[in-house]
Protein backbone atom coordinates (compact mmCIF):
# COMPACT_ATOMS: atom_id res chain seq x y z
CA UNK A 1 0.00 0.00 0.00
CA UNK A 2 2.97 2.27 0.57
CA UNK A 3 3.75 2.30 -3.14
CA UNK A 4 0.14 3.17 -3.97
CA UNK A 5 0.36 6.13 -1.66
CA UNK A 6 3.48 7.39 -3.34
CA UNK A 7 1.85 7.02 -6.73
CA UNK A 8 -1.38 8.88 -6.06
CA UNK A 9 -1.78 11.50 -3.34
CA UNK A 10 -4.63 10.77 -0.93
CA UNK A 11 -8.01 12.40 -1.43
CA UNK A 12 -11.43 12.13 0.17
CA UNK A 13 -13.06 12.02 -3.26
CA UNK A 14 -14.20 8.62 -4.49
CA UNK A 15 -13.98 7.03 -7.90
CA UNK A 16 -10.30 7.28 -8.71
CA UNK A 17 -9.88 3.58 -9.40
CA UNK A 18 -13.11 3.34 -11.37
CA UNK A 19 -12.61 6.38 -13.60
CA UNK A 20 -8.90 5.92 -14.23
CA UNK A 21 -9.42 2.20 -14.78
CA UNK A 22 -12.19 2.75 -17.31
CA UNK A 23 -10.34 5.55 -19.07
CA UNK A 24 -7.14 3.51 -19.16
CA UNK A 25 -8.74 0.33 -20.53
CA UNK A 26 -10.67 2.33 -23.13
CA UNK A 27 -7.58 4.29 -24.16
CA UNK A 28 -5.55 1.11 -24.46
CA UNK A 29 -8.08 -0.79 -26.52
CA UNK A 30 -9.11 2.01 -28.88
CA UNK A 31 -5.83 3.89 -29.33
CA UNK A 32 -2.75 2.18 -27.94
CA UNK A 33 -3.18 -1.45 -29.04
CA UNK A 34 -4.12 -0.50 -32.63
CA UNK A 35 -1.16 1.87 -32.76
CA UNK A 36 1.13 -0.87 -31.45
CA UNK A 37 -0.23 -3.18 -34.15
CA UNK A 38 0.88 -0.73 -36.83
CA UNK A 39 4.33 -0.20 -35.33
CA UNK A 40 4.95 -3.92 -34.77
CA UNK A 41 3.68 -4.86 -38.23
CA UNK A 42 5.93 -2.32 -39.93
CA UNK A 43 8.76 -3.22 -37.53
CA UNK A 44 8.55 -6.86 -38.56
CA UNK A 45 10.02 -5.85 -41.91
CA UNK A 46 13.79 -6.02 -42.25
CA UNK A 47 15.20 -2.53 -42.00
CA UNK A 48 16.48 -2.33 -45.57
CA UNK A 49 13.09 -3.54 -46.87
CA UNK A 50 11.33 -0.87 -44.80
CA UNK A 51 13.71 1.74 -46.19
CA UNK A 52 13.17 0.51 -49.76
CA UNK A 53 9.38 0.80 -49.45
CA UNK A 54 9.55 4.17 -47.72
CA UNK A 55 11.86 5.62 -50.37
CA UNK A 56 10.53 4.15 -53.59
CA UNK A 57 10.00 6.87 -56.23
CA UNK A 58 6.21 6.85 -55.99
CA UNK A 59 6.38 7.27 -52.19
CA UNK A 60 8.97 10.06 -52.49
CA UNK A 61 6.79 11.88 -55.01
CA UNK A 62 3.85 11.60 -52.60
CA UNK A 63 5.90 13.04 -49.71
CA UNK A 64 6.98 15.92 -51.91
CA UNK A 65 3.37 16.75 -52.74
CA UNK A 66 2.01 16.17 -49.21
CA UNK A 67 4.74 18.18 -47.48
CA UNK A 68 5.04 20.87 -50.14
CA UNK A 69 1.33 21.57 -50.46
CA UNK A 70 0.83 21.38 -46.68
CA UNK A 71 3.67 23.84 -46.12
CA UNK A 72 2.29 26.32 -48.66
CA UNK A 73 -1.26 25.92 -47.28
CA UNK A 74 -0.09 26.44 -43.69
CA UNK A 75 1.87 29.50 -44.85
CA UNK A 76 -1.18 30.99 -46.58
CA UNK A 77 -3.20 30.29 -43.45
CA UNK A 78 -0.59 31.90 -41.22
CA UNK A 79 -0.82 35.14 -43.24
CA UNK A 80 -4.58 35.29 -43.83
CA UNK A 81 -5.46 33.64 -40.52
CA UNK A 82 -3.50 36.35 -38.75
CA UNK A 83 -5.27 39.10 -40.69
CA UNK A 84 -8.68 37.56 -39.94
CA UNK A 85 -7.85 37.15 -36.24
CA UNK A 86 -6.63 40.76 -36.18
CA UNK A 87 -9.89 42.05 -37.69
CA UNK A 88 -11.97 39.98 -35.27
CA UNK A 89 -10.08 41.22 -32.22
CA UNK A 90 -9.35 44.84 -33.12
CA UNK A 91 -12.18 45.99 -35.34
CA UNK A 92 -15.93 46.21 -34.95
CA UNK A 93 -17.53 45.81 -38.35
CA UNK A 94 -20.97 44.70 -39.56
CA UNK A 95 -21.16 40.92 -39.80
CA UNK A 96 -18.30 40.41 -37.38
CA UNK A 97 -20.16 37.82 -35.33
CA UNK A 98 -21.10 35.86 -38.44
CA UNK A 99 -17.47 35.88 -39.58
CA UNK A 100 -16.45 34.70 -36.12
CA UNK A 101 -18.95 31.84 -36.28
CA UNK A 102 -18.13 30.58 -39.78
CA UNK A 103 -14.39 30.37 -39.05
CA UNK A 104 -15.15 27.02 -37.41
CA UNK A 105 -16.97 25.72 -40.49
CA UNK A 106 -14.02 23.55 -41.62
CA UNK A 107 -14.06 21.88 -38.17
CA UNK A 108 -17.76 21.07 -38.50
CA UNK A 109 -18.05 20.39 -42.23
CA UNK A 110 -17.32 16.77 -43.18
CA UNK A 111 -14.20 16.68 -45.35
CA UNK A 112 -15.94 14.78 -48.15
CA UNK A 113 -18.38 17.68 -48.53
CA UNK A 114 -15.72 20.33 -48.91
CA UNK A 115 -13.86 17.89 -51.18
CA UNK A 116 -16.60 17.41 -53.75
CA UNK A 117 -17.62 21.08 -53.50
CA UNK A 118 -14.09 22.34 -54.26
CA UNK A 119 -13.58 19.79 -57.01
CA UNK A 120 -16.80 20.87 -58.72
CA UNK A 121 -16.20 24.60 -58.29
CA UNK A 122 -12.63 24.44 -59.62
CA UNK A 123 -13.28 21.91 -62.40
CA UNK A 124 -12.54 23.40 -65.86
CA UNK A 125 -16.29 24.04 -66.40
CA UNK A 126 -16.96 24.91 -62.77
CA UNK A 127 -17.90 28.30 -61.33
CA UNK A 128 -14.33 29.43 -60.70
CA UNK A 129 -12.57 27.00 -63.03
CA UNK A 130 -14.18 28.51 -66.15
CA UNK A 131 -12.56 31.88 -65.34
CA UNK A 132 -9.21 30.46 -64.34
CA UNK A 133 -8.72 28.03 -67.22
CA UNK A 134 -8.51 30.74 -69.95
CA UNK A 135 -5.86 32.45 -67.81
CA UNK A 136 -3.84 29.26 -67.98
CA UNK A 137 -4.39 28.48 -64.31
CA UNK A 138 -5.36 24.88 -63.80
CA UNK A 139 -6.44 24.28 -60.21
CA UNK A 140 -8.41 21.04 -60.31
CA UNK A 141 -6.30 17.87 -60.67
CA UNK A 142 -3.02 19.68 -59.99
CA UNK A 143 -0.93 20.43 -56.91
CA UNK A 144 -2.68 23.81 -56.76
CA UNK A 145 -5.98 22.08 -56.09
CA UNK A 146 -4.38 20.06 -53.29
CA UNK A 147 -3.10 23.29 -51.78
CA UNK A 148 -6.52 24.95 -52.01
CA UNK A 149 -8.17 22.01 -50.20
CA UNK A 150 -5.51 21.98 -47.49
CA UNK A 151 -5.84 25.74 -47.01
CA UNK A 152 -9.56 25.36 -46.38
CA UNK A 153 -9.19 22.73 -43.66
CA UNK A 154 -6.27 24.43 -41.90
CA UNK A 155 -7.70 27.94 -41.56
CA UNK A 156 -9.46 27.64 -38.15
CA UNK A 157 -6.32 26.31 -36.49
CA UNK A 158 -4.43 29.55 -37.08
CA UNK A 159 -7.34 31.91 -36.35
CA UNK A 160 -8.34 30.12 -33.16
CA UNK A 161 -4.81 30.05 -31.73
CA UNK A 162 -3.87 33.61 -32.71
CA UNK A 163 -7.16 35.20 -31.59
CA UNK A 164 -6.73 34.71 -27.80
CA UNK A 165 -3.09 35.78 -28.02
CA UNK A 166 -4.03 39.02 -29.79
CA UNK A 167 -6.62 39.69 -27.10
CA UNK A 168 -3.86 39.42 -24.52
CA UNK A 169 -1.59 42.02 -26.15
CA UNK A 170 -1.20 44.81 -23.62
CA UNK A 171 -2.79 47.88 -25.23
CA UNK A 172 -1.09 50.22 -22.77
CA UNK A 173 2.29 49.10 -24.13
CA UNK A 174 1.15 50.03 -27.62
CA UNK A 175 -0.08 53.40 -26.41
CA UNK A 176 3.17 54.00 -24.59
CA UNK A 177 5.16 53.16 -27.71
CA UNK A 178 2.98 55.39 -29.87
CA UNK A 179 3.16 58.31 -27.47
CA UNK A 180 6.92 57.96 -27.53
CA UNK A 181 6.77 58.45 -31.29
CA UNK A 182 6.90 54.91 -32.64
CA UNK A 183 5.19 54.44 -35.98
CA UNK A 184 2.32 51.96 -36.34
CA UNK A 185 4.58 49.57 -38.26
CA UNK A 186 7.19 49.76 -35.53
CA UNK A 187 4.61 49.11 -32.81
CA UNK A 188 3.44 46.12 -34.77
CA UNK A 189 6.95 44.74 -35.22
CA UNK A 190 8.29 45.45 -31.74
CA UNK A 191 5.23 45.14 -29.48
CA UNK A 192 2.48 43.08 -31.11
CA UNK A 193 4.37 40.52 -33.16
CA UNK A 194 6.66 39.30 -30.34
CA UNK A 195 3.64 38.61 -28.11
CA UNK A 196 1.72 36.77 -30.78
CA UNK A 197 4.57 34.93 -32.48
CA UNK A 198 4.50 31.71 -30.37
CA UNK A 199 0.76 31.35 -30.94
CA UNK A 200 1.19 31.98 -34.65
CA UNK A 201 3.86 29.27 -34.72
CA UNK A 202 1.52 26.88 -32.89
CA UNK A 203 -1.31 27.62 -35.31
CA UNK A 204 1.00 27.13 -38.29
CA UNK A 205 2.21 23.79 -36.95
CA UNK A 206 -1.32 22.60 -36.15
CA UNK A 207 -2.52 23.54 -39.63
CA UNK A 208 0.52 21.84 -41.18
CA UNK A 209 0.08 18.67 -39.10
CA UNK A 210 -3.58 18.46 -40.02
CA UNK A 211 -2.82 19.03 -43.70
CA UNK A 212 -0.22 16.25 -43.85
CA UNK A 213 -2.74 13.63 -42.79
CA UNK A 214 -5.76 15.04 -44.60
CA UNK A 215 -7.53 12.76 -47.04
CA UNK A 216 -11.22 13.48 -47.63
CA UNK A 217 -11.07 17.04 -48.87
CA UNK A 218 -8.05 16.40 -51.10
CA UNK A 219 -8.75 13.26 -53.11
CA UNK A 220 -11.62 14.71 -55.14
CA UNK A 221 -9.76 17.77 -56.38
CA UNK A 222 -6.35 16.10 -56.65
CA UNK A 223 -7.02 13.88 -59.65
CA UNK A 224 -4.78 11.26 -58.04
CA UNK A 225 -2.26 10.71 -60.83
CA UNK A 226 0.61 8.49 -59.64
CA UNK A 227 3.88 10.43 -59.20
CA UNK A 228 2.11 13.75 -59.76
CA UNK A 229 -0.99 14.41 -57.68
CA UNK A 230 -1.00 11.47 -55.29
CA UNK A 231 -0.83 12.36 -51.58
CA UNK A 232 0.73 9.92 -49.11
CA UNK A 233 -2.51 8.90 -47.33
CA UNK A 234 -3.97 7.98 -50.73
CA UNK A 235 -0.90 5.88 -51.57
CA UNK A 236 -1.49 3.96 -48.30
CA UNK A 237 -5.08 3.25 -49.31
CA UNK A 238 -3.97 2.11 -52.78
CA UNK A 239 -1.50 -0.32 -51.18
CA UNK A 240 -4.26 -1.64 -48.90
CA UNK A 241 -6.57 -2.16 -51.86
CA UNK A 242 -3.84 -4.26 -53.47
CA UNK A 243 -3.60 -6.25 -50.20
CA UNK A 244 -0.05 -4.97 -49.74
CA UNK A 245 -0.48 -4.73 -45.96
CA UNK A 246 3.25 -4.51 -45.28
CA UNK A 247 3.75 -1.69 -47.76
CA UNK A 248 0.81 0.19 -46.25
CA UNK A 249 2.14 -0.40 -42.73
CA UNK A 250 5.60 0.87 -43.73
CA UNK A 251 4.21 4.12 -45.14
CA UNK A 252 1.87 4.34 -42.16
CA UNK A 253 4.86 4.15 -39.83
CA UNK A 254 6.55 7.00 -41.71
CA UNK A 255 3.44 9.15 -41.30
CA UNK A 256 3.05 8.18 -37.65
CA UNK A 257 6.64 9.32 -37.02
CA UNK A 258 5.86 12.64 -38.72
CA UNK A 259 2.79 13.02 -36.46
CA UNK A 260 4.91 12.45 -33.35
CA UNK A 261 7.43 14.98 -34.60
CA UNK A 262 4.62 17.53 -35.02
CA UNK A 263 3.36 16.77 -31.51
CA UNK A 264 6.84 17.32 -30.09
CA UNK A 265 7.18 20.57 -32.04
CA UNK A 266 3.88 21.86 -30.68
CA UNK A 267 4.89 20.94 -27.12
CA UNK A 268 8.23 22.70 -27.60
CA UNK A 269 6.50 25.86 -28.85
CA UNK A 270 4.13 25.70 -25.87
CA UNK A 271 7.10 25.46 -23.52
CA UNK A 272 8.62 28.48 -25.25
CA UNK A 273 5.39 30.43 -24.83
CA UNK A 274 5.09 29.58 -21.13
CA UNK A 275 8.74 30.49 -20.49
CA UNK A 276 8.27 33.85 -22.23
CA UNK A 277 5.06 34.60 -20.36
CA UNK A 278 6.88 33.81 -17.11
CA UNK A 279 9.86 35.94 -18.16
CA UNK A 280 7.69 38.99 -18.82
CA UNK A 281 6.31 39.01 -15.30
Amino acid at each position, binding site marked *: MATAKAWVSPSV*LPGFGLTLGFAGVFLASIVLI*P*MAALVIRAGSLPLEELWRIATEPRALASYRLSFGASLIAAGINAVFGFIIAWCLVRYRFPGRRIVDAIID*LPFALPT*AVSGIALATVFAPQGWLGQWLTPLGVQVAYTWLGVTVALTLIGLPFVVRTVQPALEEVDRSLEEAAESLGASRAMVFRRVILPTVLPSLATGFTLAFARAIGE*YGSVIFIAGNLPMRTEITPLLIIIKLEQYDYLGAAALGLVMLCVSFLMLLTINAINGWRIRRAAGRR
Partner: protein
Amino acid sequence: MSKRKAATVRSQNPVVRVLLVGVSVAFLALFLIVPVIAVLSYAFSRGFTVYFEALRTPDTLAAIRLTLVTAAIVVPLNTMFGVAAAWAIAKFDFRGKQILITLIDLPFSVSPVIAGLMFVLLFGAQGWFGPWLNARDIQIVFALPGIVLATMLVTFPYVARELIPIIQLQGRESEEAAVSLGAGGWTTFFRVTLPSIRWGLLYGVILCNARAMGEFGAVAVVSGHIRGLTTTMPLQAQVLYDEYDITGAFAVASLLMLLALFTLIGKTVVEALGARRRRA
Protein backbone atom coordinates in the same frame (compact mmCIF):
# COMPACT_ATOMS: atom_id res chain seq x y z
CA MET B 1 4.85 55.56 -44.73
CA SER B 2 3.46 58.73 -43.25
CA LYS B 3 5.18 59.36 -39.98
CA ARG B 4 2.41 61.02 -38.10
CA LYS B 5 3.51 61.51 -34.56
CA ALA B 6 0.84 59.98 -32.40
CA ALA B 7 -1.54 62.88 -32.10
CA THR B 8 -4.39 60.53 -31.32
CA VAL B 9 -3.12 57.56 -29.41
CA ARG B 10 -4.22 54.16 -30.77
CA SER B 11 -5.13 55.82 -34.03
CA GLN B 12 -6.60 53.37 -36.49
CA ASN B 13 -5.96 54.14 -40.07
CA PRO B 14 -9.41 53.72 -41.68
CA VAL B 15 -7.91 52.74 -45.03
CA VAL B 16 -5.90 49.93 -43.47
CA ARG B 17 -8.94 48.86 -41.54
CA VAL B 18 -11.22 48.64 -44.56
CA LEU B 19 -8.47 46.92 -46.53
CA LEU B 20 -7.84 44.26 -43.88
CA VAL B 21 -11.54 43.54 -43.29
CA GLY B 22 -12.02 43.35 -47.06
CA VAL B 23 -9.16 40.88 -47.46
CA SER B 24 -10.55 38.75 -44.61
CA VAL B 25 -14.05 38.67 -45.98
CA ALA B 26 -12.83 37.92 -49.51
CA PHE B 27 -10.64 35.07 -48.26
CA LEU B 28 -13.48 33.54 -46.26
CA ALA B 29 -15.90 33.98 -49.14
CA LEU B 30 -13.57 32.13 -51.50
CA PHE B 31 -12.68 29.25 -49.19
CA LEU B 32 -15.82 28.83 -47.07
CA ILE B 33 -18.85 30.52 -48.60
CA VAL B 34 -18.37 29.50 -52.24
CA PRO B 35 -18.19 25.75 -51.40
CA VAL B 36 -21.29 26.03 -49.20
CA ILE B 37 -23.31 27.77 -51.90
CA ALA B 38 -22.00 25.29 -54.47
CA VAL B 39 -23.28 22.33 -52.45
CA LEU B 40 -26.75 23.82 -52.14
CA SER B 41 -27.00 25.00 -55.72
CA TYR B 42 -25.86 21.66 -57.21
CA ALA B 43 -28.12 19.72 -54.84
CA PHE B 44 -31.18 21.69 -55.92
CA SER B 45 -30.08 22.31 -59.53
CA ARG B 46 -32.75 19.96 -60.87
CA GLY B 47 -35.51 20.98 -58.52
CA PHE B 48 -36.88 19.88 -55.18
CA THR B 49 -38.55 16.71 -56.49
CA VAL B 50 -35.30 15.34 -57.88
CA TYR B 51 -33.53 16.34 -54.67
CA PHE B 52 -35.91 14.41 -52.44
CA GLU B 53 -36.00 11.47 -54.82
CA ALA B 54 -32.21 11.34 -54.72
CA LEU B 55 -32.37 11.15 -50.94
CA ARG B 56 -35.00 8.41 -50.99
CA THR B 57 -33.01 5.82 -52.93
CA PRO B 58 -32.54 2.66 -50.83
CA ASP B 59 -28.73 2.94 -50.77
CA THR B 60 -28.81 6.52 -49.57
CA LEU B 61 -31.39 5.72 -46.90
CA ALA B 62 -29.22 2.81 -45.77
CA ALA B 63 -26.22 5.16 -45.62
CA ILE B 64 -28.15 7.64 -43.47
CA ARG B 65 -29.20 4.80 -41.14
CA LEU B 66 -25.63 3.51 -40.87
CA THR B 67 -24.31 6.96 -40.04
CA LEU B 68 -26.94 7.43 -37.33
CA VAL B 69 -26.28 3.98 -35.83
CA THR B 70 -22.53 4.58 -35.80
CA ALA B 71 -22.89 7.94 -34.08
CA ALA B 72 -25.39 6.43 -31.61
CA ILE B 73 -22.77 3.90 -30.53
CA VAL B 74 -19.65 6.07 -30.71
CA VAL B 75 -20.80 9.31 -29.09
CA PRO B 76 -22.14 7.86 -25.79
CA LEU B 77 -19.06 5.66 -25.35
CA ASN B 78 -16.65 8.51 -26.01
CA THR B 79 -18.69 10.74 -23.70
CA MET B 80 -18.41 8.20 -20.88
CA PHE B 81 -14.70 7.97 -21.53
CA GLY B 82 -14.34 11.75 -21.58
CA VAL B 83 -16.14 12.20 -18.27
CA ALA B 84 -14.22 9.38 -16.59
CA ALA B 85 -10.85 10.61 -17.86
CA ALA B 86 -11.61 14.22 -16.90
CA TRP B 87 -12.69 13.17 -13.39
CA ALA B 88 -9.55 11.09 -12.81
CA ILE B 89 -7.25 13.78 -14.22
CA ALA B 90 -8.80 16.85 -12.63
CA LYS B 91 -9.82 15.54 -9.22
CA PHE B 92 -6.73 13.54 -8.32
CA ASP B 93 -2.97 13.95 -8.31
CA PHE B 94 -1.09 10.98 -9.59
CA ARG B 95 2.12 10.24 -11.36
CA GLY B 96 1.96 9.96 -15.13
CA LYS B 97 -0.94 12.39 -15.42
CA GLN B 98 0.83 14.45 -18.08
CA ILE B 99 1.57 11.34 -20.11
CA LEU B 100 -2.10 10.34 -19.92
CA ILE B 101 -3.17 13.77 -21.21
CA THR B 102 -0.71 13.52 -24.10
CA LEU B 103 -1.96 10.02 -24.98
CA ILE B 104 -5.59 11.20 -24.98
CA ASP B 105 -4.62 13.94 -27.47
CA LEU B 106 -2.78 11.51 -29.72
CA PRO B 107 -5.67 10.76 -32.11
CA PHE B 108 -5.84 14.47 -32.99
CA SER B 109 -2.43 14.30 -34.61
CA VAL B 110 -2.82 10.94 -36.34
CA SER B 111 -4.07 10.94 -39.93
CA PRO B 112 -7.55 9.40 -40.24
CA VAL B 113 -6.21 7.08 -42.90
CA ILE B 114 -3.60 5.78 -40.44
CA ALA B 115 -6.37 5.31 -37.85
CA GLY B 116 -8.29 3.11 -40.27
CA LEU B 117 -5.11 1.30 -41.31
CA MET B 118 -4.44 0.28 -37.70
CA PHE B 119 -7.73 -1.61 -37.48
CA VAL B 120 -7.20 -3.29 -40.85
CA LEU B 121 -3.81 -4.49 -39.60
CA LEU B 122 -5.49 -5.86 -36.46
CA PHE B 123 -8.69 -7.36 -37.85
CA GLY B 124 -8.25 -7.56 -41.64
CA ALA B 125 -7.87 -10.85 -43.53
CA GLN B 126 -4.08 -10.70 -43.11
CA GLY B 127 -4.25 -8.95 -39.74
CA TRP B 128 -3.25 -10.26 -36.31
CA PHE B 129 -6.70 -11.55 -35.43
CA GLY B 130 -7.80 -12.06 -39.06
CA PRO B 131 -7.52 -15.87 -39.25
CA TRP B 132 -9.03 -16.29 -35.77
CA LEU B 133 -11.99 -14.07 -36.65
CA ASN B 134 -12.37 -15.72 -40.05
CA ALA B 135 -12.55 -19.18 -38.49
CA ARG B 136 -15.40 -17.98 -36.29
CA ASP B 137 -17.11 -16.12 -39.09
CA ILE B 138 -16.88 -12.75 -37.33
CA GLN B 139 -16.65 -9.70 -39.58
CA ILE B 140 -15.04 -6.59 -38.15
CA VAL B 141 -13.32 -4.90 -41.08
CA PHE B 142 -15.70 -4.18 -44.00
CA ALA B 143 -18.59 -4.26 -41.51
CA LEU B 144 -20.23 -2.17 -38.80
CA PRO B 145 -17.78 -3.02 -35.96
CA GLY B 146 -14.83 -1.77 -38.00
CA ILE B 147 -16.63 1.45 -38.93
CA VAL B 148 -17.52 2.00 -35.26
CA LEU B 149 -13.96 1.33 -34.06
CA ALA B 150 -12.36 3.62 -36.65
CA THR B 151 -14.85 6.40 -35.89
CA MET B 152 -14.30 5.92 -32.16
CA LEU B 153 -10.55 6.35 -32.52
CA VAL B 154 -10.84 9.50 -34.61
CA THR B 155 -13.38 11.16 -32.28
CA PHE B 156 -11.75 9.83 -29.11
CA PRO B 157 -10.35 13.08 -27.57
CA TYR B 158 -13.23 15.50 -28.22
CA VAL B 159 -15.24 15.24 -24.97
CA ALA B 160 -12.23 14.69 -22.71
CA ARG B 161 -10.44 17.63 -24.31
CA GLU B 162 -13.35 20.00 -23.54
CA LEU B 163 -13.96 18.72 -20.02
CA ILE B 164 -10.45 18.43 -18.55
CA PRO B 165 -9.73 22.20 -18.40
CA ILE B 166 -13.26 22.99 -17.14
CA ILE B 167 -13.17 20.45 -14.31
CA GLN B 168 -9.61 21.48 -13.45
CA LEU B 169 -10.68 25.12 -13.20
CA GLN B 170 -13.45 24.21 -10.78
CA GLY B 171 -11.21 22.83 -8.12
CA ARG B 172 -12.22 20.15 -5.71
CA GLU B 173 -13.72 22.01 -2.75
CA SER B 174 -17.41 21.58 -3.66
CA GLU B 175 -17.04 17.83 -4.18
CA GLU B 176 -14.95 17.44 -1.05
CA ALA B 177 -17.62 19.30 0.91
CA ALA B 178 -20.36 17.10 -0.54
CA VAL B 179 -18.47 13.91 0.25
CA SER B 180 -17.60 14.98 3.79
CA LEU B 181 -21.29 15.76 4.36
CA GLY B 182 -22.03 12.15 3.51
CA ALA B 183 -22.95 12.20 -0.19
CA GLY B 184 -21.98 9.15 -2.20
CA GLY B 185 -19.75 9.28 -5.26
CA TRP B 186 -22.54 9.18 -7.85
CA THR B 187 -24.69 11.66 -5.94
CA THR B 188 -21.74 14.02 -5.75
CA PHE B 189 -21.11 13.70 -9.45
CA PHE B 190 -24.72 14.15 -10.57
CA ARG B 191 -25.68 16.85 -8.03
CA VAL B 192 -22.46 18.84 -7.71
CA THR B 193 -20.13 18.27 -10.65
CA LEU B 194 -22.48 17.69 -13.57
CA PRO B 195 -24.53 20.91 -13.20
CA SER B 196 -21.40 23.01 -13.41
CA ILE B 197 -19.84 21.21 -16.37
CA ARG B 198 -22.96 20.62 -18.45
CA TRP B 199 -22.28 23.30 -21.08
CA GLY B 200 -18.75 22.13 -21.63
CA LEU B 201 -19.98 18.56 -21.78
CA LEU B 202 -22.67 19.45 -24.31
CA TYR B 203 -20.11 21.34 -26.38
CA GLY B 204 -17.80 18.33 -26.46
CA VAL B 205 -20.67 16.02 -27.38
CA ILE B 206 -21.73 18.31 -30.26
CA LEU B 207 -18.21 18.39 -31.70
CA CYS B 208 -17.76 14.64 -31.20
CA ASN B 209 -21.05 13.94 -32.95
CA ALA B 210 -20.24 16.19 -35.90
CA ARG B 211 -16.93 14.48 -36.45
CA ALA B 212 -18.43 11.01 -35.93
CA MET B 213 -21.13 11.55 -38.55
CA GLY B 214 -18.82 13.24 -41.01
CA GLU B 215 -15.70 11.10 -40.73
CA PHE B 216 -14.41 10.06 -44.12
CA GLY B 217 -10.78 8.94 -44.24
CA ALA B 218 -10.78 6.46 -41.37
CA VAL B 219 -14.10 4.96 -42.40
CA ALA B 220 -13.08 4.79 -46.06
CA VAL B 221 -10.22 2.46 -45.12
CA VAL B 222 -12.28 0.00 -43.07
CA SER B 223 -15.58 0.16 -44.91
CA GLY B 224 -14.93 -1.73 -48.13
CA HIS B 225 -17.55 0.48 -49.81
CA ILE B 226 -20.27 -2.19 -49.98
CA ARG B 227 -23.23 -0.21 -51.28
CA GLY B 228 -26.26 -0.18 -49.04
CA LEU B 229 -24.32 -2.06 -46.34
CA THR B 230 -21.10 -0.34 -45.30
CA THR B 231 -21.27 3.09 -46.90
CA THR B 232 -21.85 5.89 -44.41
CA MET B 233 -23.20 9.21 -45.67
CA PRO B 234 -19.82 10.74 -46.57
CA LEU B 235 -18.85 7.54 -48.40
CA GLN B 236 -22.21 7.48 -50.17
CA ALA B 237 -21.53 11.03 -51.37
CA GLN B 238 -18.22 9.79 -52.78
CA VAL B 239 -19.77 6.75 -54.45
CA LEU B 240 -22.44 8.88 -56.15
CA TYR B 241 -19.89 11.54 -57.15
CA ASP B 242 -17.64 8.91 -58.74
CA GLU B 243 -20.65 7.66 -60.70
CA TYR B 244 -21.26 11.20 -61.99
CA ASP B 245 -24.57 11.33 -60.10
CA ILE B 246 -23.93 14.97 -59.19
CA THR B 247 -27.44 15.68 -57.86
CA GLY B 248 -27.36 12.58 -55.67
CA ALA B 249 -23.87 13.28 -54.36
CA PHE B 250 -24.66 16.89 -53.49
CA ALA B 251 -28.04 15.93 -52.00
CA VAL B 252 -26.22 13.71 -49.49
CA ALA B 253 -23.59 16.41 -49.06
CA SER B 254 -26.30 18.97 -48.33
CA LEU B 255 -27.57 16.84 -45.43
CA LEU B 256 -24.04 16.68 -44.02
CA MET B 257 -23.76 20.42 -44.44
CA LEU B 258 -26.98 20.86 -42.52
CA LEU B 259 -25.33 18.86 -39.75
CA ALA B 260 -22.35 21.23 -39.87
CA LEU B 261 -24.62 24.29 -39.68
CA PHE B 262 -26.53 22.83 -36.71
CA THR B 263 -23.18 22.10 -35.09
CA LEU B 264 -22.04 25.70 -35.54
CA ILE B 265 -25.34 27.08 -34.26
CA GLY B 266 -25.35 24.67 -31.32
CA LYS B 267 -21.78 25.61 -30.52
CA THR B 268 -22.57 29.33 -30.60
CA VAL B 269 -25.66 28.90 -28.40
CA VAL B 270 -23.84 26.71 -25.88
CA GLU B 271 -20.99 29.21 -25.74
CA ALA B 272 -23.41 32.06 -25.09
CA LEU B 273 -25.25 30.11 -22.39
CA GLY B 274 -21.98 29.10 -20.77
CA ALA B 275 -20.78 32.72 -20.81
CA ARG B 276 -24.03 33.95 -19.24
CA ARG B 277 -23.75 31.33 -16.53
CA ARG B 278 -20.22 32.40 -15.72
CA ARG B 279 -21.28 36.03 -15.42
CA ALA B 280 -24.24 35.19 -13.16
